[in-house]
């Protein structure tokens, strides 16, 4: 166990250094991504304002902004692993990862941990940028240190789904368009108002137990003025994210085993 932890930490170190090298070598990539994401939501707000003839639509801006920032956070994780599997199997580096002695599931988890600081930084930078553009919003950004822990738990839950996508990519390779469709479904979930969903309906169940929607609900709570009762949401998020991570991890291991049997880990 001690050896496993030591090797895992070395793996996280390797991935973290690689991440830092890429950020330093291609700074414009990260900056342009943030700028692009920022512009899109501002354009959506502008479009809504135009549609309403300047009268304003009855929308919850705080929910929209948190949902949008969380969406970019989730998407970059969720699609990231599948994209990396697809790229690396073409490059040939997937072979090296597969024969490194680590399971690919462990490598991906280490990657997730190593990329978490950058992805959470993107989340907070976007939040700050929107808060600066819309000062009337009721967002308590000074609660960011609590949000950071929630964000980490959300990320763990997202890794569960990312594992599923990555495993399917291992087996079927080019299925990016299939994931795009699923992403649209996620997009709908983010901006769904839970209050109007009847309790017990499938959408309500999905909304309450899915780590990302559950995370959004909790983040709204964190960034609101009252943060006195966060213990229950925190534990709730821990349990559901944990279930998703463990389930995703084991599902991926099964798919990885199948890929090894079918010789699908080779360069293609």
């Amino acid at each position, binding site marked *: 166990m001690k050896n496993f932890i030591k090797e895992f930490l070395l793996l996280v*170190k390797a991935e973290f250094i690689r991440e830092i090298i890429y950020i330093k*070598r291609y700074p414009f990539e990260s900056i342009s991504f943030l700028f692009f994401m920022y512009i899109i939501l501002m354009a959506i707000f502008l479009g809504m304002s135009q549609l309403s003839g300047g009268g304003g639509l009855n929308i919850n801006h705080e929910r929209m902004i948190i949902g949008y920032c969380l969406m970019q956070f989730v998407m970059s994780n969720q699609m990231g692993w599948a994209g990396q599997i697809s790229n690396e199997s073409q*490059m040939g*580096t997937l072979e*090296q990862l597969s024969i490194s002695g680590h399971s690919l599931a462990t490598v991906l988890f280490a990657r997730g941990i190593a990329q978490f600081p950058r992805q959470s930084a993107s989340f907070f930078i976007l939040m700050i940028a929107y808060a600066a553009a819309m000062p009337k919003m009721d967002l308590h950004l000074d609660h960011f240190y609590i949000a950071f822990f929630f964000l980490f738990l959300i990320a763990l839950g997202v890794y569960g789904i990312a594992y599923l996508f990555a495993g399917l990519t291992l087996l079927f390779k080019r299925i990016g368009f299939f994931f795009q469709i699923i992403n649209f479904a996620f997009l709908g979930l983010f901006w769904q108002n839970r209050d109007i969903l009847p309790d017990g309906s499938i959408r309500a169940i999905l909304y309450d137990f899915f780590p990302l929607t559950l995370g959004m609900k909790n983040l709204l709570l964190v960034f609101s003025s009252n943060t006195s009762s966060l213990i229950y949401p925190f534990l709730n998020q821990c349990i559901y994210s944990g279930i998703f991570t463990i389930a995703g991890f084991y599902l991926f291991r099964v798919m990885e085993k199948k890929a*090894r049997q079918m010789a699908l880990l080779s360069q293609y």
Partner: protein
Amino acid sequence: MDLKVEALYKTYSKPLSKKKFEAVKNISFEIATGEIYALLGPNGAGKSTTIKMIAGLITPTSGKILFNNSAHKNYQVLSAVLEGSRNVYWRLTPLENLHYFANLRGVPSRQIKEKSELLLKELEIDAKKANQSRHLSRGMLQKLAIAAALITDPQILLLDEPTLGVDVASARNIKEKIRSLAKKEGKSVLLTTHQLDLVDQLADRVGIIQNGNLVREGTIEELKKISQNYLYHISIQGKFKIPAEWKKIFIITEIKYHSEITEFEVDCKTKTGMSSILEYFSKNKLDIIFLQKKRDNLEEVFLRSLESKSGVA
């Protein structure tokens, strides 16, 4: 460290189909410490599948892979360079790549810098160590992939086509490194290749694979001996009619009549066959223009092994 492969089998079945494809059939061989073993075979023979099963990239259908007679796979003792030069991250420099793979394979941090610098120097990539790998030539990339495989100081090295598409100078550098790894550092090397000259220069033993079967195995000298021939190419002045009794004793092929020369190939079958032919030429005062024994080179051995369907080693 010894590597032993016992009755290795790999069968693929297509989804929604009962048809099965046997890529590797009952292959067994052994590589001793410090030995270079080459797997030769035509495309699709099963060489890469075999090497990938040993590396752990493909799960065998059945069979055993043993390291020092133990089935427990310790990945620290084994490294592989598979399918050419695209085994490294192109946006990282050679030095960054080596640091990444060293951390990935659990090399202690204090050893990484020194080992990386040494490998880059030995494989003559140190001049380009700060350039992104995407700017390196194919030969350089191949050497970098080998360096990345060697960063863990493995006891067993698997090399799939290590000099394919590499320029002469780089190929020589790679060959020297492989030889030194086996002979000076005692590493066991398994390589697959189509390049017979590489096998001739490097391999201690050779296994020839065809259709997933190991059809021949032995040292290069042993293989040449097994396939030894008494095949001669002869040119005689004038029109020469092959004597009828020769056709009963020897195998005469490739008879060609040019204006003043008769050319043919004869398989004497025995060591003494040629002396009776020469005696006939001398007795009939025939002028021999050209006489050459066909060489028992590795290419001949290889081709004849593939032709002989019953020649299972």
